[in-house]
Structure formats: C-alpha cells, structure tokens
C-alpha cells in the first residue's frame, strides 16, 4: 500500500546551520593569510616547513585513517597548524615526522576525527620538542629575501641539520634569560623571531574574529585565555615590575595562535560552556605559570596539552543542570 515515492526518515526533517566539513575548511581557509604572512617574514623556508608538516599529517591520515576521512579537512588543519608553530629553519623531515606523529598517535589511535584527547598538532609539536630540542629552538631572524633559506630545510632524513643560519632569540627568550623586553608594536606586526606562524598577532586575531562571528569557534576560550593572562601578568607586574607586562605576555610567543586556533579545537576543548570558561582560564593560568616560573620561555603548547588532558574531567564536572531539576539532578520542588 505504501507509496514508493515517499521516504521514511526520523524527525527532524529540517537541517540547519553549519556542517562539520564547512567548519573545518573555513578554519583552513582562515589560515591562508597567516601562512602568507609567514612566507613574508620567513621566506621560502616557512612554506617548506608548513608543506612538510601538512604532507606528514595528510599522508598518515590517508594511509591509516578511515577511507575518505581526508575530505573532512581536519588532517590538513592539523598539518598547517603544526607547520605554523615550528621554526622556519627546521629540517623538513622533522616537520614531516611531527605531522605523522600528531595524526598517528594523537588522533587515529583514538579512532579518528572527534575522538582524540590531545590536540594532534600540538602533540606533534610536543613530540618534536622532546625529540629534537635543539632544532626546534633554533630561531631564524625574520626578514631577508624570499628565496634565502633560514636553516637546513633539506637535511637528509634522520640526519642532523648543519646550522649556519642567522639566528636570533625570541622575544620570550630575551625576556626570560636576559630580562629584555621587545616593543609590542613589533610583536603585533610580527617582525620578530619565532615560529613561522605565531608572530603575526594581527592576522591571527582577524582570522579568529572571522571564525568567532561565523560561530565556527567558541569565543569563550580565547577570551578566557586573554583575560586570565592579562590579569595574572598585570598583577605580577604590579607587584614586581621586572615581570613582563600584560601586553607583552599577550602578543609574544605562540599565545595568539594557540589561544585562537589550538585551544579552540572543539574536539579537544570542553563541550559545555561552563567548561569552556574553566578550560580557558586554566590554559591562561598555566601559560603564565610556565612562562614566569618554569624552565621554558614558552608554555602555550604545554598549557593547552595539559588542559586537553583535563577536558574529559571538566566535561564530567560541568554537566548542565537539566530543566526542572536542581543542580544535583534531583527533581526540583
């Protein structure tokens, strides 16, 4: 009796808003200006490093991931983000390895998109940091001609890079080890030493604003991070003026890139809104703690990874109060 023309699907029969695919590719798109800026400041080397990291991530996803999972764009984002937080002079094989590690052990092992605990790009970077501490802290100076390589990008796989490039300390390194501050204007425009993509604070903020307006990222997380970092470093500076001030803290190092693009990865940040605030505040506080009292000049990556580890716990602890129930799940009245 039933009419073959008609489908039988469950309600709702309407579909609204963004799709995962569109979100992912929008994020990738918003990274393009940042990549361009990286190429402007660090020349061809920046592009080589980004390309190598992306190739590592994408190839790993292609080989070991579920068939067709490349299409959701998440592997490409991981690769580009990883590339953006490496120094320009890094050997390409290392960047490739980092991308492969991040996707392989940071994502696919958990079952692929949406199920990983740690941000794959940052896990890849943490791996590189622990494996090749020298190579990843050799910062080439910004500027120079486009075609000039900023280090030994073409070192043979597994082989050491011969380092004869012009290096420079990062603003955070200068602050930590020599107590010298860098003008905030330079930080804002990006003409300082550092990872290829983290120096251009302005472009990162613009990209983040675009994504936040499109609601492709949760604005609460970067806002919470910025406010926490500014407040804590403000308090510290007020107590002892040798501590770096809020503006310097905000615009130096990977804070902008991390807060806007890494911490907001929906998969590895809390799903609840209250959780997002807690997460952001936690990242901000850890960044300040590691930068000020830790052994490393930069702590954004570790702060985010540590808070990633907290996310399942935060999620459990911040379950929303169900309508018509009090906070502990009891029926009200």
């Amino acid at each position, binding site marked *: *009796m039933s009419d073959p023309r008609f489908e039988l699907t*469950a*309600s709702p029969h309407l579909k609204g808003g963004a799709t995962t695919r569109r*979100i992912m590719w929008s994020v990738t798109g918003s990274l393009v200006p940042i990549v361009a800026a990286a190429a402007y400041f660090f020349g061809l080397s920046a592009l080589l490093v980004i390309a190598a990291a992306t190739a590592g991530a994408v190839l790993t996803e292609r080989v070991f991931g579920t068939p067709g999972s490349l299409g959701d764009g998440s592997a490409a984002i991981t690769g580009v983000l990883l590339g953006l937080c490496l120094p320009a002079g890094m050997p390409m094989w290392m960047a490739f390895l980092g991308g492969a590690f991040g996707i392989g052990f940071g994502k696919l092992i958990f079952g692929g998109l949406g199920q990983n605990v740690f941000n794959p790009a940052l896990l890849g970077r943490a791996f590189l940091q622990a494996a090749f501490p020298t190579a990843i802290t050799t910062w080439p100076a910004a500027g120079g001609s486009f075609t000039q390589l900023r280090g030994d990008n073409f070192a043979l796989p597994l082989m050491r890079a011969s380092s004869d490039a012009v290096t420079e300390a990062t603003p955070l390194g200068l602050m930590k080890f020599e107590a010298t501050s860098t003008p905030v204007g330079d930080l804002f425009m990006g003409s300082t030493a550092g990872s290829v993509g983290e120096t251009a604070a302005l472009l990162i903020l613009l990209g983040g604003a675009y994504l936040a307006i499109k609601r492709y990222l949760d604005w609460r997380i970067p806002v919470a991070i910025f406010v926490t970092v500014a407040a804590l470093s403000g308090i510290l500076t007020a107590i002892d003026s040798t501590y770096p001030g809020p503006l310097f803290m905000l615009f130096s190092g990977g804070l902008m890139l991390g807060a806007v693009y890494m911490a907001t990865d929906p998969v590895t940040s809390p799903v609840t809104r209250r959780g997002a605030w807690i997460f952001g505040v936690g990242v901000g506080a850890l960044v300040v703690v590691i930068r000020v009292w830790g052994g490393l000049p930069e702590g954004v990556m570790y702060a985010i990874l540590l808070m990633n580890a907290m996310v399942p716990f935060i999620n459990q602890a911040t379950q*929303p109060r169900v309508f*018509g129930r009090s906070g502990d799940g009891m*029926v009200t009245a």
Partner: protein
Amino acid sequence: MILRSGFRHGVHPADSKHLTENVPIRRMGFPTEVVLPLRQHAGKPARVLVARGDKVERGDKIAAADGFISAPVHASATGTVAGVELWPHPDGSMAEVVRVTVERYSPQIPRPRLVPRWEGLSPEEVVKAVQEAGVVGLGGAAFPTHVKLSPPPDADVELLIVNGAECEPYLTTDHRTMAEYPERVHFGTRVMMQCLGVDRAVIGVEKNKPDAIDVLTATIPDDLDITILPLTVKYPQGAEKMLIKAITGREVPSGKLPMHVGVIVQNAGSIATIAEVFETGLPLVERIVTVTGPGVKRPSNLVVPVGSKLRDVLDFCGGLTDDVTEVLFGGPMMGAPQTDLDVPIIKGTTGVVVLTRAETERHPVYPCIHCGRCLDACPVFLNPQLLGSLAQVGRYEEMEASHLADCMVCGACSYVCPSNIPLSQMFSLGKAALQKMATKVA
C-alpha cells in the same frame, strides 16, 4: 506573577510560514469515505459502539470513552459503516478504525444540538459536555481536554496559558484560527477560566503572527483579565514547559505536570474548538489543518472532516509536485513521516507538510566533533553529545542516569548538529529500549 518573554536555548529554523499564513481558511468538501481510528487521543482507545452496516449521522457517537483519560469518537459525516477493521494509522502502525462510506448528496445538515448550551451549566457539567463532545488537545499530543479542565482539588491553579506559539515551521493552523476566529479563542478561554476557577489568562503568540496578535488584542472581552503576550520567535516555544518558562519564568519540575507550578496550558486551536462545540452544538467532527510545503501545488488552510484520507486532502489542494520525497503529519521538526496516502487526518493532526528533494537531501554523517551546539540548542539543558555517544554504544542505563527521560525529542539537537548525527532519533530509540527493559523487569 512576572510576565517574561523567553526561555533559554532552542533553535531558529526558517519558519517557512509564508506559504499559508495569509491564506484564509476554506472548507473542504466531504470525501467519499472517512476513516475514524478509535485511538485519536492520548490515553485508552475508545470503545466502538457501531457495527458494519449501521447508518450513522454526522455527530453521532460511534465510540465511547473508555475511562477517564479517554475520549469518544463521533461520526464526521453521514453515511454507512463500511467496516470496523485495521487500517494504517498516522503513527505508522495498523489500528482499529471505523470506516464510514459517506452518503452521496447528503445535506450533512445541522441536527438538533448535541452539546448543551453553555449558559447556566455548572463547571462539572461543562467538563462532562466537553468530554462527551470528544474534545482533545489539537496541538498534536491530543490529550483529552476534559482532564485538563478538572484538576485535582489540591492543585492550586491560578493561571491559564493559551498556547498560540505555533513554533513548528510551515504550520499556520493556530495562526489562522486566531486571526479569523478571535471570538472563539476568547470564548473558549472564558469557558476554561470559569471551569478552572482562575481569573487570569495569558495568550502567548509568537511575534511572527502580528495580525493574530492585533485581532486578539482588539477583541478582548471587557470582563476578562486576558493578556495577549507577543513572544520572540524560537523553537520549541510551543512545548508546554518552554511556554510556561517563557511566560512565567517558572520551571516545571522534571516528571511533573504544569499544574505543579499553578498553570494550565491549552492549545489555541483546542480553545477555539471548545468554543465551537458549545456554539454549534456539534461534537468535534472537523478540524483546521494546514496543508503546505513546497511539494503541494496549492498550499491551504482547510477545515477538514476528521477521518478524511490524506489522499483526498492532498487532491483538494491540487495534488503533489513531482519531486516530492516526504509527507509529514505535523511540522518538520517533530512530525511523523507518512508513506501511505490512505492514512486519515485525525483530531491531533496539526498539519500536513510535503517536502521535496531540496529540503530532505540526506547529509553524510561525520563523527561528533564536540562542538557543543547541541548543548546550546537543547531547551531542557541535557547533554545530547554525551547521550549520543552513550546511545551509539548501547549504554541505555547510563543514558537514563543522564536524564534521558527529560528529553522531549524536540529535534533541536539533530537540527543543529554539524555532523548530522541523528541524535533525537537515537534518543527516541533509547527511550523505547529503556521502556522495553522496564516492562521486562516488571
């Protein structure tokens, strides 16, 4: 009492009401056959009173209420009982129906009043009359109205809310009713207020029906304390608990009824029907239905005899376009898809929405990316993300612990999910599985 205007969360689907919102209600002619299921209301199915071959007249009771939470069924057309048998029901099952072959050329004339005049009746008599008239909520759930009219003596009801939100996209049934029959709405409100002994009523209407708001405001009787409250447009405002929250700021405790917070909610269409049965003296034998959607050639608001077959209704509206994929009873958010054009329009059918390929294109399902949109959408503040992952591995007990019972399957979570995960479908399946387990244990 604070009158506010809003509840938290919810979604904003395109309302698509332009198809019919300005189309006046028309009357559909009698079909050749009406099919009257015995189960058209929440509660126990009615007891059948007629047999094959019996002659029935329009308004005759053909099935009686079986218990308090039950409602009688009346013949919606004059004719002969062609059979008492199983027939496709809009809920997808086969259910017992009374099939009546409509007498051709019958005048279907008005008969001596079957429902008594309202004037001078005691509240108890009014309740009785409403039950006998087979009036049920016309908003979809079809809860027998007389039950709502007789709250237990200990309940302290102080406010009547008339639900004119009609938040489902496409549907304009209540909208047209309010716009064209404001007196009926006010009269029905008067009846209910008197029965319940409350002296305040609020008619909540979403702001996308300005004409209805204007007409209702203009016609408020001087002797009644009725407020017309424009509401911001948001789905699912029409859900009882959301509406109460939006209007009074009170939260109905989980698992409890609105009367626990001193409120009774009745759908605007049902209110108008109460007025209509007392006005015409006929029981509930017809209702207003929006037949709409891009798949219908002539979208209309119709007065349709209860029991008319979907096929006849669609034919009256000019038939279907070629690219039709889905026919829904109810709105697109919560409506039930129909695959059989022989199903009857029943008392609880708020509308018929016909969708085409463009609206129903199926989307590939991606893994959940924990974006949290479903948490922002859920009007009862559940965590659909967690519930969904539990459902996927079949952990129904844990879903229950995460308050699956509070889910009203409004579909807001599925609507917003960027990964197209069929959340609300999994929740209704989860609920069914839990119910099965519970009955097994019991």
